[in-house]
């Protein structure tokens, strides 16, 4: 029962994150949608599979994704900033520094 509920919630987050990847207008907002897909979609689905099967290998994969997902998001945003992709006016509205 709760496993199927977690399946539907993770499918919802996966589709919403993919729509965010398509619809957002710059790189730094797409990194946010990437985190929605990774945490809300994949890690929640792996939690439900760990509950259903009772195997500890799913928890190992969840820990690995929690470490590497944040590191990959950080290095993508850092490389985009260093290679000259300028943030749009979205950051100025919310108090970010002018570039």
């Amino acid at each position, binding site marked *: 029962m709760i496993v199927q509920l977690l399946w539907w919630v993770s499918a919802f987050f996966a589709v919403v994150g993919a729509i965010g990847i398509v619809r957002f207008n710059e790189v730094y907002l797409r990194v946010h949608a990437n985190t929605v897909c990774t945490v809300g*979609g994949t890690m929640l689905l792996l939690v439900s599979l760990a509950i259903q099967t009772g195997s500890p290998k799913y928890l190992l994969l969840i820990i690995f994704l929690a470490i590497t997902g944040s590191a990959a998001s950080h290095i993508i945003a850092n490389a985009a900033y260093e290679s000259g992709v300028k943030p749009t006016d979205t950051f100025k509205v919310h108090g970010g520094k002018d570039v």
Partner: protein
Amino acid sequence: MIELAYIIAIALCLARAIFGPSFADRVVSIDTASALLIGFIAYMGVYLDLSYLLDIAFVIAILSFIGTIVVSLYMKGSLK
């Protein structure tokens, strides 16, 4: 039904990887598609009762992380 939602999400990410305007957009889209592919393969391993698909999900996680790091360093210009 869950696998259909994941296929639609991966197809949307790959469409952004094809039509992405800049290089960093493609890197983010491919990383998101591989993260969704890990969950899809792990789910199909339970759905089809094939336990070795979880090991394939581990290998895809490691390779996509290394690929993202290397392509980001190349985009940054620090990889000579």
